[in-house]
């Protein structure tokens, strides 16, 4: 079981998971490389030791692996991260101990409540073979390197579980609402949208400047609209939900999804009072327009923080509004992007 967990960890690009000691009472796991710790150092540099490690996903993964290996159900182990690459250590290290009593865990929503994806007519005038691109990207091998990491498209990828993102972002929202009320809600919502926007800048920007894009997609692209169709076709291979371009002009994008993974989750949680919950997809939608019609990605600019501040946060940048939400009604999540 622990060997299977280690291989799963590596295959999904989370790093190397080495069990140093293991038994029913606990053990030690070391990760010579770990996605989040390495990513933290690359993005932000080293942390002060007093701030502690950042490998929360790996810590939880180790806890679950031990629970399933020795108890057959989750909730039986505590974990402490004692070393972290983000603190300057040469590895991440976790100490696991058996709990006196198992901890009750919230059951997963599984796949969530997914909407139906109906076949659609090609977008009028679109010259991009969107379905073929989606299928080709889906089949691209994304094997981890010797570190168990997946460097591709100019960024570090990981095959993260949708419900991990959903649950952490939802709990963030819930706790900030409890602490600060509507101010907390608005603060978290804007941060989650911004996280999607930054993701689009780095990931989509990296994709559109990559050799993979040049080989697979670029031969079909003739104008800026084609670039938008091309990146949406690539995004449809990433498991975020089926994205459809409903309207596209240099000053406007209307994007929709019948099964975005955020609304799948919120629908499963029966949160009928919530509106506009597809925060990541909101950020992604405006990121597409800012990359193509505001940042001129076709000229392959240097995508650094200064460029982000200049083009993605200026008064000229595109904004986004979620104009339809699957919660409380049938249909799709829809996103209107304009200035």
């Amino acid at each position: 079981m622990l060997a299977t967990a280690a291989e799963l960890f590596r295959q999904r690009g989370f790093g190397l998971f080495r069990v140093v000691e293991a038994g029913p009472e606990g053990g030690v796991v070391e990760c010579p490389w770990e996605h989040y710790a390495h990513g933290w150092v690359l993005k932000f540099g080293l942390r002060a030791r007093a701030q502690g490690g950042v490998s929360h996903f790996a810590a939880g993964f180790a806890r679950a692996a031990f629970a399933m290996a020795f108890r057959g159900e989750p909730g039986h182990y505590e974990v402490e991260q004692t070393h972290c690459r983000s603190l300057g250590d040469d590895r991440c290290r976790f100490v696991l101990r058996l709990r006196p009593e198992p901890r009750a865990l919230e059951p997963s929503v599984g796949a969530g409540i997914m909407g139906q994806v109906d076949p659609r007519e090609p977008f009028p005038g679109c010259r991009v073979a969107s379905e073929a691109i989606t299928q080709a990207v889906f089949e691209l091998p994304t094997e981890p390197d010797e570190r168990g990491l997946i460097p591709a498209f100019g960024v570090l990828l990981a095959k993260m579980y949708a419900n991990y993102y959903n649950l952490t972002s939802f709990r963030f929202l819930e706790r900030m609402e409890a602490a600060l009320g509507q101010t907390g809600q608005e603060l978290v919502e804007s941060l989650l949208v911004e996280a999607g926007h930054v993701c689009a800048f780095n990931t989509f920007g990296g994709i559109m400047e990559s050799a993979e894009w040049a080989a697979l997609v670029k031969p079909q692209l003739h104008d800026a609209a084609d670039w938008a169709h091309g990146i949406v076709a690539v995004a449809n291979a990433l498991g975020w939900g089926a994205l459809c371009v409903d309207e596209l002009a240099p000053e406007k994008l209307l994007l929709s999804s019948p099964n975005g993974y955020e609304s799948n989750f919120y629908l499963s949680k029966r949160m009928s009072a919530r509106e506009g919950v597809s925060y990541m997809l909101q950020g992604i939608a405006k990121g597409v327009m800012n990359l193509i019609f505001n940042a001129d990605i076709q000229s392959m600019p240097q995508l650094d923080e200064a460029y982000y501040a200049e083009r993605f946060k200026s008064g000229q940048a595109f904004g986004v509004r979620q104009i339809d939400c699957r919660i409380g009604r049938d249909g799709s999540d829809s996103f209107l992007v304009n200035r």
Partner: protein
Amino acid sequence: MRYQLKTVRNCQGQARAVFVLEGQVDRALLEHLCPGGRVQVLPLAGKVPGALDFCRVESPEGWRLAAGLGGRELELLHPPDDPSPRERVERLLRDWGGA
């Protein structure tokens, strides 16, 4: 071979360089730029109209090249703060074909 160094950036700490070549990328060129490298070809041509077979080369030192075979763009990935692979590729590109 003449080329234009289109961009060098440091997204998430990764130093990247994209060379836009006057000529085309082929396997012989990649082997010249990265002798002894591990070559992986992904057959993309035919899957999407106009797509090129995609090639990745990993050098024995750990840096990587990526390009569509028959295309003009060649991407170099190497560890941050280490300019030597880029300088080496630039020198070998200039030497290639005697241009």
